[in-house]
């Protein structure tokens, strides 16, 4: 949109609006209410509901304001008898075949159709004929569908296509028989549920929450998602200490993600109130014995005594401290403080295999926000699979290309789904991503790099040319396959590619909701990684204090290593493979039960807010650590307040300087932490390392030719999604049940045997 402004007359008053502005937006900004259903910002125009009619001088008929771009001198009326009659008529048409069953509809109370009918009032029911009938049914384990309530605004089909790139749900049939659905009536897709979110009526419904609560009974708490590193903002709906549902509906929350969430964010929450949540602290008094319930005092005392003994018997470095990258900054900071200031061990780590330290230490430009991604001109994606691992980033990329005309350049050994949107896809051999980085930074290495990657020289040349053609933002993203040297080089690419007309921004793609925070809180700076500690168990490491659990993969690789420890303390929500070896298990509170912050892959610190009281006897992770410290004789001084922890973070962690909770209050204006930008530095050491590594790369690695299935990462069962029956159906291939028609009270249940097919920790 240009900055030039033009004059239009709205309801007899003149306004100056930017050239190219859309009439419906302008009217709304000026406070004139324009009803609409099909119009949805940043989706393809539809102009089918015909609610947004206005009168424009010199035009023969009423016009849909959603399709009109303002022109100079335009004279518009938004309210008149004629317009109101037309708009009421459209509403009357929409209600004609609608069942008017608000009292039994899950959307009742937050339905746009219902609200419009109520706002206008005075509706006379002239439709006295028989209504068209369609049965209510399930479309998938997560998604229920009552086609009779549909007004065919097609927001659902558009988000499915434009946001998700899946096109799994579509309109079938014709005329009055048009229905939203799928071939065969079963929805095979990533189950993001965004179709539910954008549905203005009760047509598409959260199948896991059907008839469980009315919206007005729920307390809405704005918080940050606990799954991936995108950090979507969401509204937790709770009632009486129970988390009932998660939505991103814009009447409750307005975050970086708009109304977008992925399958995990939206449906992955039932672990919170799960019956298997730990009930009390547990102590195993004797190796090989049973874990027995204990009081908090007993448990804390037991841990303190044993840690003391260990430090005396071996040395301080025999104690390892590990925190999960899912925990809040507050918890990770407190753990780091505990490890370094109290225990004094060098062996602390975040339980994250992907260290971004070399990247962060060489950071040559700020992080790209998700908003930046949507408006980028060019996106360079090195490795990774954001559509499965960072779904919001995936959606932003897709929209940047489809709705914003950006070019997407992908270098990957796998033809990920996003290549559908790519301008150029450089299909390299597996494990040769470093070679691509080398060639980007050092044109002289193009030939060697191309050879090991199994691509033509010209492909990298074309890539460079497309980057050189970019005017506006270039965003460089990378997934987890880069070596430390390559990360440093990528971090410095802004100095190579930046120019007066081209801003370069960086966007790492770590896996966990607080991977970045774990780095910032210093937990990635220990002497050993979590898995190194595991292999040192019984050798140099004799005790481990872990908040969270080890990954299934790490554990099964070094079977029984945990058994060799003298002492193991685990803070957890559930009993896990790790707690099987624990001497003490401390029940921790989930993200829904605590206050705190997460730092996402855009470097934004966002609030986690308590929605329900801690389940059973659980406590916040940082509180447990602080209590342990006090038992060991040191008072961290946080009292019982997460904000006190955060204040100390703001004092001690450079990038967080000056931040306070009140500054993080508005989720629509997320705060990006101020990282030090490293000016252009000499990279010859790193480049040499890369050259040697690339020279040594075999030319035998395979390329993968098949595009991975939707959900191949998203549907992997982890500790948390294991507690959601529907995820087991997805992991089992989302089979279509015998009958999809449902009575109002029928709920999908899952065979318990499916649960045991858990495939290990995923994101």
């Amino acid at each position, binding site marked *: 949109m240009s900055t030039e402004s033009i004059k239009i007359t709205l309801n007899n008053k003149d306004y100056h609006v930017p050239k190219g502005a859309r009439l419906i937006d302008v009217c709304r900004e000026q406070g004139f209410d324009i009803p609409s259903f099909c119009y949805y910002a940043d989706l393809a125009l539809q102009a089918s509901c015909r609610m947004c009619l206005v009168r424009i001088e010199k035009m023969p008929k009423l016009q849909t304001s959603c399709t009109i771009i303002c022109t100079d001198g335009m004279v518009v009326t938004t309210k008149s008898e004629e317009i109101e009659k037309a708009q009421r008529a459209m509403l009357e048409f929409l209600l004609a075949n609608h069942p008017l069953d608000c009292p039994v509809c899950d959307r009742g109370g937050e339905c746009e159709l219902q609200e419009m009918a109520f706002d206008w009032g005075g509706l006379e029911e002239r439709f006295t004929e028989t209504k068209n009938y369609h049965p209510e049914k399930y479309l998938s384990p997560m998604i229920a569908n009552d086609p009779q309530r549909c007004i065919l605004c097609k927001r659902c089909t558009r988000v499915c296509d434009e946001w998700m790139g*899946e*096109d*799994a*749900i*579509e*309109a*079938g*049939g*014709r005329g009055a028989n048009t229905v939203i659905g*799928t*071939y*065969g009536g079963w929805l*095979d*897709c990533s189950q993001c549920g965004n179709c539910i979110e954008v549905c203005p009526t009760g047509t598409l419904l959260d199948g896991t929450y059907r008839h469980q609560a009315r919206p007005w009974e729920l307390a809405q708490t704005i918080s940050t998602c606990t799954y991936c590193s995108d950090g979507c903002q969401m509204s937790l709906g709770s009632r009486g200490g129970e988390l009932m549902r998660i939505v991103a509906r814009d009447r409750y929350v307005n975050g970086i993600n708009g109304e977008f969430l992925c399958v995990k964010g939206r449906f992955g929450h039932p672990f919170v109130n799960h019956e298997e949540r730990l009930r009390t602290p547990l102590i195993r008094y004797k190796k090989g014995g049973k874990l027995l319930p204990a009081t908090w005092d007993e448990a804390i005392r037991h841990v303190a005594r044993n840690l003391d003994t260990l430090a005396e018997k071996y040395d301080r470095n025999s104690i390892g401290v590990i925190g999960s990258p899912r925990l809040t900054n507050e918890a990770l900071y407190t753990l780091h403080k505990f490890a370094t200031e109290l225990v004094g061990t060098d062996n602390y780590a975040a339980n994250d295999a992907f260290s971004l330290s070399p990247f962060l230490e060489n950071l040559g430009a700020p992080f790209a926000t998700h908003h930046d991604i949507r408006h980028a001109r060019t996106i360079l994606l090195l490795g990774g699979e954001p559509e499965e691992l960072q779904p919001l980033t995936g959606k932003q990329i897709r929209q940047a290309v489809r709705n914003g005309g950006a070019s997407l350049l992908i270098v990957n050994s796998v*033809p990920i*789904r996003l*290549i*559908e949107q790519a301008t150029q896809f450089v299909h390299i051999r597996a494990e040769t991503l470093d070679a691509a980085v080398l060639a980007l930074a050092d044109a002289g290495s193009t030939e060697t790099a191309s050879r090991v990657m199994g691509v033509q020289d010209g492909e990298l040349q074309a890539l460079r040319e497309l980057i050189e053609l970019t005017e506006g933002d270039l965003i460089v993203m990378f997934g987890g396959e880069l070596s430390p040297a390559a990360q440093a080089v990528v971090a410095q690419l802004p100095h190579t590619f930046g120019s007066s007309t081209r801003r370069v921004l960086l966007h790492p793609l770590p896996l966990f909701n607080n991977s970045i925070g774990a780095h910032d809180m210093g937990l990635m700076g220990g002497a050993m990684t979590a898995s190194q500690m595991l292999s040192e168990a019984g050798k140099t490491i004799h005790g481990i204090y872990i908040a969270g659990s080890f990954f299934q993969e790490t554990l099964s690789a070094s079977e029984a290593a945990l058994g060799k420890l003298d002492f193991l303390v685990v803070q957890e929500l559930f009993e896990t493979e790790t707690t099987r070896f624990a001497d003490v298990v401390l029940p921790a509170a989930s993200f829904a039960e605590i206050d705190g912050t997460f730092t996402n892959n855009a470097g934004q610190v966002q609030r986690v807010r308590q929605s329900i009281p801690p389940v059973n006897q659980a406590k916040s992770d940082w509180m447990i650590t602080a209590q342990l410290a006090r038992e060991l004789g040191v008072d961290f001084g946080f009292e019982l307040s997460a904000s006190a922890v955060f204040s100390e973070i703001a004092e001690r962690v450079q990038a967080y300087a000056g931040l306070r909770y009140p500054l993080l209050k508005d989720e629509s204006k997320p705060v990006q932490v101020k990282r030090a930008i490293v000016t252009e530095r000499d990279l010859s050491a790193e480049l040499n390392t890369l050259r040697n590594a690339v020279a040594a790369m075999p030319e035998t690695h395979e390329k993968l030719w*098949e*595009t991975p*299935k*939707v959900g191949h990462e998203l549907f992997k069962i982890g500790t948390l999604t294991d507690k959601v029956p529907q995820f087991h159906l997805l992991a089992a*291939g*989302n*089979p279509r049940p015998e009958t999809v028609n449902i009575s109002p009270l029928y709920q999908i249940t899952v065979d318990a045997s499916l649960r045991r097919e858990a495939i290990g920790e995923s994101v």
Partner: protein
Amino acid sequence: MTYIQIGPRSQPVRVQDEIGSFSPEVEAEIDRHLAKYPVMRSAILPLMFIVQRERGYLDPPGVAYLAKRLQLRITDIWEVATFYSMLHTEPIGKYHIQVCRTLSCKILGSDKITGYCADRLGIKPGETTADGRFTLSEVECLGSCGTAPMFQINFDYHENLTPQKIDQILASLP
């Protein structure tokens, strides 16, 4: 349960049924249609008619074939197939008798034609005979108003109909 990967722009789609296959002659015919357009998807309607001719209707293997051949998603096939009245996603009789019911035919007695056919075949409009030979439908204007009343059997026009003529036509069908 099998998954098929349908084209580069598609997520894999689960299909219960196999993917239909056709003789080299039919494949060649399909190629000729595809060659007409700069964009493959444009050939969807001609190809659907071919699948329908070969398989009786757009059955699941036929639909899967179309998705694969046109590099589209299964839903793309479905949304198009259900829009057009000449495409059938349910089985249909060998002979589809389509009586025009729109105004010009109507005022010249199309109701009687439909009624006569219904009596002869023992089915109501919208139904198929038990042996699967005939389906009777009432359809909208077929561009035969000057020669009303009329029906179309599959693609053949039969105009200026009378009961005697209908008897002859039905008797002549192989």
